[in-house]
């Protein structure tokens, strides 16, 4: 891929990073992403620390939610703002530094190298994860009918069509950026593909979803219900490759 092509693509997209109490890491994540020449929007989910200030100092555009509304609401805020600003694609990252911004050009190159341009590229890291996570993935794949291995990865590339679907008020009541989001796009015939990347261990804190059996239980019940009520159920989809029913 040519460097000027990449620069051209970079200029039409934006990185969206939802963050809640990530003051320790958010600055580094933003700076790392800005180094690529990419615009960064950080959505601060009513943090009680200096997350918003740290993100702004590192060069991000910062949107602040007026109350704690959850990670998906924060993510959707960023995507809505990106749609409104006219960006053509969005990459989403976690604010805790587990996703390496250096992988973003690889995801772009992967998306562009395919004949049929995918609407969504999920940057997956199947190698990570403990027993709980592996079990959850397996169950959710079974229930949702999605063929994506890493359903919970927050590191994703969305094209304009996916962004517009996700910014819609139909998606507002989702809680997590994973099965519900992927099913919403899958059922509307969008193509989802996966690309393996390495993920770094979190520097501070740990996964909120996979922290304890109780939280995993809540997450699994929620995702199971989403999967069973919203899966495609044999509906013909236009997607090919990794994600067909």
């Amino acid at each position: 891929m040519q460097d000027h092509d990449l620069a051209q693509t970079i200029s039409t997209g934006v990185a969206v990073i939802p963050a809640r109490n990530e003051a320790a890491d958010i600055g580094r994540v933003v700076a790392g992403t800005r180094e690529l020449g990419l615009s960064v929007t950080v959505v601060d989910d009513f943090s009680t620390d200096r997350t918003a200030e740290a993100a702004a100092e590192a060069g991000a555009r910062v949107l602040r939610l007026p109350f704690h509304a959850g990670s998906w609401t924060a993510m959707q805020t960023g995507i809505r703002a990106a749609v409104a600003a006219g960006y053509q694609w969005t990459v989403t990252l976690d604010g805790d530094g587990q996703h390496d911004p250096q992988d973003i050009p690889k995801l772009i190159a992967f998306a562009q190298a395919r004949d049929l341009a995918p609407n969504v590229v999920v940057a997956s890291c199947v190698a990570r994860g403990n027993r709980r996570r592996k079990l959850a993935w397996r169950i959710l794949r079974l229930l949702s009918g999605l063929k994506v291995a890493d359903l919970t990865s927050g590191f994703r590339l969305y094209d304009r069509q996916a962004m517009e679907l996700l910014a819609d008020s139909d998606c507002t009541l989702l809680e997590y950026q994973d099965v519900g989001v992927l099913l919403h796009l899958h059922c509307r015939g969008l193509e989802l593909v996966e690309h393996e990347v390495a993920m770094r261990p979190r520097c501070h804190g740990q996964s909120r979803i996979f922290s304890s059996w109780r939280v995993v239980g809540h997450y699994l019940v929620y995702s199971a219900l989403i999967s069973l009520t919203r899966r495609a159920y044999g509906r013909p989809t236009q997607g090919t490759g990794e994600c067909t029913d």
Partner: protein
Amino acid sequence: MTLPMFSAILAGVVVLSIFWLLRRDRLPVMHSLWWLSVAGLIGLLGLFPRLIDRVADWVGVAYSPSLLFMVAILVLLIKVLLEDVDVSQDRRRLLRLAQKVAMLEEQIEQLNHEDPGKRSRDPRNS
């Protein structure tokens, strides 16, 4: 006290409570229609207790009080379900608004940044 008296008082209390809540603007007017109907039903069945036996006979329920309980539970179930739909709709609107507030606030900051003279008009300072 007789049954008709008891249920008439019950229905009266429900109607008066709804009337009071409407006067105080604590209840949307159309919601009151539901509760007034419920009050009417209580009053009707209280004044004419034989009515429930007739209806039970009609629909083939052998023990008429069980029909009464079934209908009461169904009425409450439907109400709670509709209420839940309403609450979700409100939550959706609340979250959309919160997102819009976040977006607009950032735009105001941008505008003030471009034109520092207007900074005093930042709504967060007022």
